[in-house]
């Protein structure tokens, strides 16, 4: 067995963790979206403490992965962005929780 193969097998549980979700900022955003039905950009910014640009970038990545939908519209004359977790996003978040829990449980004390 090659060293690379051994390394891959050893790291397998960690490698299986969804890297899109694993970034702290995106994990925080997804966690909030997981517990509510939908939220707008300002609310998420207030809850997560991220900057406008940072939040926008992370949301774009989550949207690319198909985990969130971003509905851009207007409330009166003002722009308004609502964000919602998609069904695949909800499934991926649950799977991430399960995988991470498993990895952490397997770690020796």
């Amino acid at each position, binding site marked *: 067995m090659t060293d690379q193969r051994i390394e891959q097998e050893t790291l397998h549980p960690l490698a299986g963790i969804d890297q899109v979700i694993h970034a702290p900022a995106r994990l925080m955003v997804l*966690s*909030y979206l997981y517990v509510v039905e939908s939220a707008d950009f*300002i*609310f998420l910014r*207030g809850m997560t403490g991220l900057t*406008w640009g940072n939040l926008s970038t992370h949301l774009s990545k989550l949207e690319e992965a198909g985990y969130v939908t971003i509905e851009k519209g207007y409330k009166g004359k003002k*722009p308004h*962005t609502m964000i919602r977790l998609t069904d695949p996003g909800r499934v991926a978040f649950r799977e991430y929780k399960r995988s991470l829990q498993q990895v952490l449980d397997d770690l020796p004390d």
Partner: protein
Amino acid sequence: MSQKISLKEMERRAFRSAFQDGLVDIFIGCFISMFAIAPFLSTKLGDFWSSVIFLPIWAIVYLILWLIKKHVVKPRVGTVNYGSWRKSRMIKFNLIIFFILVIALILGILSFVKFDSMPGWIHTARFSLIILIAFSVAAYFLDFTRLYLYGALSAFAPLIGEVLYVYLKAPHHGFPITFGFVSCLIMITGLVLFIRLLREHPRPSLQVESEVMVE
């Protein structure tokens, strides 16, 4: 397990953010001020009309606070639609509060019709108990811990008022003093929270919002 607790706490934090503006506190303070002002009006208008007159006043206060929430608070803190768990909890809360109000109404009518010979302190104690239960239920279901304190203060107000009336001959069973104090305290708390929110959450400029939307 700790993950589960953390997500629950996040949901609670998201929901509780709705009360950080102090507007609910201001409304509760206005509501309780009725018990302080109504006794003065009852000599001219009678018990019934001195209470009913507050309905349009509450409606106007509610409308003003709703407009403030819509045009001042929401552009600063954003909008959120809560999940199904919270929605079902709110339905339960509304049903229980409705049930408590019906019981309070029945007891109120009975006290006039049937048990008028009861000592005054029994009416006062019953009134305090209903206030305490209603506030505690609201505090529990809304995860709004300040309501426990408001409930305790409001429940003690008539009892202390009764003591002031008996020992110091305070007018109107001491209600204007005790409820006046409690309502002012609650309204001031609400105002402080509202001012703090305005300071901590400046209104995002239209330009920033537009730039984010374009991305």
